[in-house]
């Protein structure tokens, strides 16, 4: 296991050190004192274990492919943006736009997520242990968004085929978001995912509300002008 300390180093130096160590064959890396700096571990494309022993800033491990990342603190804006594969776990809260545009893999936020979590998801799973803020799931195209707590307003607005599950209260559904019946398959998927990542006591999968796109915005219809005006 290799350790890197933030103290006295620039972000570029930390990231260069990470790349060098990975190229040398290190598979377990720990960054001490990350100090909430931005852009840490961006574009990590090897299946390494990467641990941040503290909070990270914006865009942490964005555009990564395959790593297993643990953040022992909170994360700033754009956590794991465009993640292709791998697992990113935040043992704290996340800022705006967590897991935006993720294409695959799993992002777990054990605390709360701020606004626009999982916007434009294109695959993978975003699991939020706490609450999420305004406009989570906006324009989600594929993948799964699970919120164990409450959601903010405009939840799941203008989605394509992302599927959302909410354990708590939905403050307001977004445009074209509708409730759907929780199937046995959904409950099994939820039970498996929650068991894998969360600590007991686990929420009851049967208590989750399923939200999907109503598909009214998928094709333009003059008769639905009012909803289009709101959505645009």
């Amino acid at each position, binding site marked *: 296991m290799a350790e890197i300390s933030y103290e006295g180093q620039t972000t570029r130096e930390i990231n260069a050190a990470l790349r060098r160590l990975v190229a040398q064959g290190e598979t377990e890396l720990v960054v001490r004192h990350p*100090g*909430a*700096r*931005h852009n840490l571990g961006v574009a990590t494309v090897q299946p390494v274990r990467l641990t941040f022993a*503290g*909070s990270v*800033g*914006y865009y942490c491990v964005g555009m990564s492919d395959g790593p297993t990342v643990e953040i022992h*603190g*909170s994360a*700033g*804006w754009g956590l794991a943006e465009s993640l292709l594969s791998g697992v990113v776990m935040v043992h*704290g*809260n*996340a*800022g*705006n736009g967590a897991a935006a545009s993720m294409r695959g893999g799993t992002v777990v936020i054990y*605390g*709360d997520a*701020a*606004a*626009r979590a999982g916007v434009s998801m294109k695959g993978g799973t975003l699991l939020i242990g706490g609450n999420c*803020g*305004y*406009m989570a799931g906006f324009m989600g195209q594929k993948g799964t968004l699970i919120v164990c707590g409450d959601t*903010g*307003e405009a939840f799941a607005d203008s989605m394509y085929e992302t599927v959302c599950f909410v354990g708590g209260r939905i403050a307001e559904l977004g445009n074209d978001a509708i409730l759907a019946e929780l199937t046995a398959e959904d409950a099994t998927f939820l039970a498996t995912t929650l068991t894998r990542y969360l600590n007991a006591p686990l929420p009851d999968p049967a208590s989750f509300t399923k939200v999907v796109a109503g598909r009214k915005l998928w094709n333009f219809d003059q008769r639905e002008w009012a909803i289009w005006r709101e959505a645009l």
Partner: protein
Amino acid sequence: MCGIVGFLDKTHNAHAAVGSVLCAMLRALGCRGPDSAGVALYGSGEAGDLVLQIKLGERGDFEARSQEIVARVQGLGTLRERSRTAAYLRLVLSDADDPRQVERLIEADDHHVEVVSMGRHLEIVKQVGSPQSLDATYGVSKWTGTHGLGHTRLSTESRIDLSHSQPFWAHGYPDLAIVHNGHITNYDTMRRRYAQRGVRLYTHNDSEIIGVYLAERLSRGSTLGEALQASLTDFDGSFSYLAATPQALGFAKDPFALKPLLVTETETFVAVATEEIAIRAACAGTYTVREAQAREVRVWQR
């Protein structure tokens, strides 16, 4: 961009190291806006004196203007202290019964001069340049007090000079200060409305209107929390802003959560900042930080 910070000591220490905390936070956010930096610091106000930080101009003969100002305030109170640092004249007046009259007389007929802050607790210094140079000029990191605000600016729509820098004192309303990150997009409409009522605006910086708005609400009897809440519907645009009075520190965040604001509260302090990096740089210890949600309003009382 722009970076805003706020810190409140919860230990009832009237001489907490607020200045050094604010400076450390601003240094960490300096890259968000190198145009200007400033702090608003609340002291204990134990003596009950009126403290004024007066801008003597962007350039010119500062000493001559200082003497004119000192002559004008004679008779409005007892001048207990007088000092000049860079472009600022600092006066301490005791027995000043009518602060508004003091402000009017100081600024009378001289467009170079502006009362940057006035109050029994509040002092603001701000200038063009980095947080480091602000500290070097005014020794802000040695200032103590109960709470305070700070700002580092990336100018987008108005001039870069001392008056257009932040924090803004709400002119005419002692001890009320704000810092803002964002754009108030209905600024022109609001500015016109205030101008029609005879309110003087000192700059073309949209952030100035926030102080004017809050002062008006507080004058009508609103609490700071009520005023912040009302601003969510009266202001359009993107904003995270902080506001402080001698008794309280609060924030409001716009309905779309377009601007960041990170918050932490422990047993001993409250810290808020545009980025967590500022809080981690200035406040040691183990604590969690979260991002404020859309439409969130929060006020901490001292």
